[in-house]
């Protein structure tokens, strides 16, 4: 089919072979152009432009030539068919209007350059100054917006907003503030556990113990005070590592009976549609769906293209009700669990230490399993203990 005929519309007229000369001569005389003909033995077909088709039909009717319109096609015919369906037409018009209108609104905000501030925090700051999904682009004054956002937050050193198409690209540099120095008070290093000192690693302060010495819990190992006949007392924040042979005791108890979370298997969804920044609730209140439940928030963007977000999101709040039921584990399982917990505790306590001996005592009771462990090890027993100094009093003294 000729593309011009498809665009302008065409009519296929069919008539008997006996009238072929008459019809073709008529076409020539009246200047009626036909493009594609053909015959099936008994009939002849002519394909004409819509206007010529109408003229030929009226002429044939005047000349009493029987004919049959086999087909009408092309774009005008299609439009005529569409006009008979106002819903489709309205949909097309709405789509067109949306496409035109969509160029004026922000579809997506992309933030880059943030490290400590979250994207959500930045979007909230921007939203407070008028830049959010659905913001009217011609009404945006980006220079003013940038200044206002920078003034509203101390954490932003520089901010740039570039609107390209429907996407607002926000670049920022965060303020790098120096970390506040902690106020240090004078302190002693004391023993966190009793034991026999193996080695002392002094960083600052006055060492009061030496290798081979027995120390009790709470005893000062490195003093934060220097006593000098020439300068008097001088205070410092003692620091150091005191490795000592000590005994750590651990206790783990695992009961046979425990609470288990059992989901009922039901799930209640509360859906809402986020169009730009306007949430549209799609659910009705269902009341209390259970006493206890887990909530899962699912946000799905309706974009058909991955990586390109549209301002249309389906938010689902999924409620999963559960009940807490009593459950029982056998002693063997309880013992395994207790051992695992004990190992974790020992590993956490002896991060820098050296394990020498380990004695584990197991008590399998009627309702629980208890594990006790005495661990002989070489570990750092130093603990910082701050103290207050009354400077005036000291000066008088």
């Amino acid at each position, binding site marked *: 089919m000729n593309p011009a005929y498809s665009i302008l519309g065409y009519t296929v007229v069919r008539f008997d*072979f006996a009238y*072929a*000369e008459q019809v*073709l*001569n008529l*076409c*020539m005389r009246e*200047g009626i*152009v*036909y*493009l594609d*003909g*053909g*015959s099936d*033995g008994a009939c*002849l077909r002519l394909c004409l432009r819509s206007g010529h088709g109408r003229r030929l039909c009226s002429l044939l009717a005047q000349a009493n030539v029987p004919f049959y319109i086999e087909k009408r096609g092309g774009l005008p015919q299609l439009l005529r068919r569409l006009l008979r369906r106002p819903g489709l037409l309205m949909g097309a018009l709405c789509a067109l209007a949306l496409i035109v209108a969509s160029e004026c609104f922000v579809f997506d905000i992309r933030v880059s350059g943030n490290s400590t501030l979250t994207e959500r925090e930045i979007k909230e700051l921007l939203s407070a100054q008028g830049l959010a999904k659905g913001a009217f682009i011609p009404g945006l004054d980006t220079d003013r917006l940038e200044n206002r956002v920078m003034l509203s937050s101390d954490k932003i050193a520089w901010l740039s907003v570039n609107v390209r198409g429907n996407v607002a690209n926000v670049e920022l540099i965060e303020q790098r503030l120096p970390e506040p120095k902690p106020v240090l008070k004078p302190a002693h290093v004391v023993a966190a556990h009793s034991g026999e000192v193996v080695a002392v690693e002094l960083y600052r302060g006055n060492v009061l113990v030496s290798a081979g010495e027995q120390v009790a819990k709470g005893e000062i190992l490195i003093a934060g005070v220097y006593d000098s006949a020439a300068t008097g007392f001088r205070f410092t924040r003692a620091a150091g590592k005191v490795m000592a042979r000590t005994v750590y005791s651990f206790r783990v108890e695992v009961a046979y009976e425990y609470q288990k979370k059992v989901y009922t298997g039901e799930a209640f969804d509360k859906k809402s549609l986020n169009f730009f920044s306007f949430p549209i609730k799609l659910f009705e209140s269902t009341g209390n769906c259970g006493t206890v439940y887990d909530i899962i928030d699912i946000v799905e963007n309706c974009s058909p293209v991955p990586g390109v977000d549209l301002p249309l999101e389906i938010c689902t709040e999924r409620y999963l009700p559960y009940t807490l039921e009593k459950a029982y584990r056998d002693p063997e399982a309880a013992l395994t669990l207790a051992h695992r917990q004990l190992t974790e505790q020992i590993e956490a306590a002896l991060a820098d230490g050296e394990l020498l001996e380990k004695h584990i005592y197991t008590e399998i009771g009627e309702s629980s399993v208890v594990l006790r462990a005495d661990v002989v090890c070489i570990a750092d027993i130093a603990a910082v203990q701050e103290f207050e100094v009354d400077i005036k009093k000291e000066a008088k003294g």
Partner: protein
Amino acid sequence: MQRRKKDKRMGAVEWLERRFDITPDVFQGVRIEICGQHRLLVQGCTKILKYSEQEMLLDLGKLRLRVCGERLWCTSFISGALGVGGCIDSVSFIEGEHT
């Protein structure tokens, strides 16, 4: 006598065409082009006298043209220009009234 006169007149036209190198369609108003066996273009056709898939008889004014073949069909007929498609076996001129 009439026959002789006609032959003379035709001779004069032919002589003019040859003498001045004029293409015959200038005087006769007819031009026929055959492209292969499946396409025929006739300029100067005033009327289709007979139309069927095996034979077409065309009125060219003083002449008549018979086109014989298989599956013949008129592809176009505008301003005296007629296109014939199909499998063309023969093209011949006929003098006198069509019967």
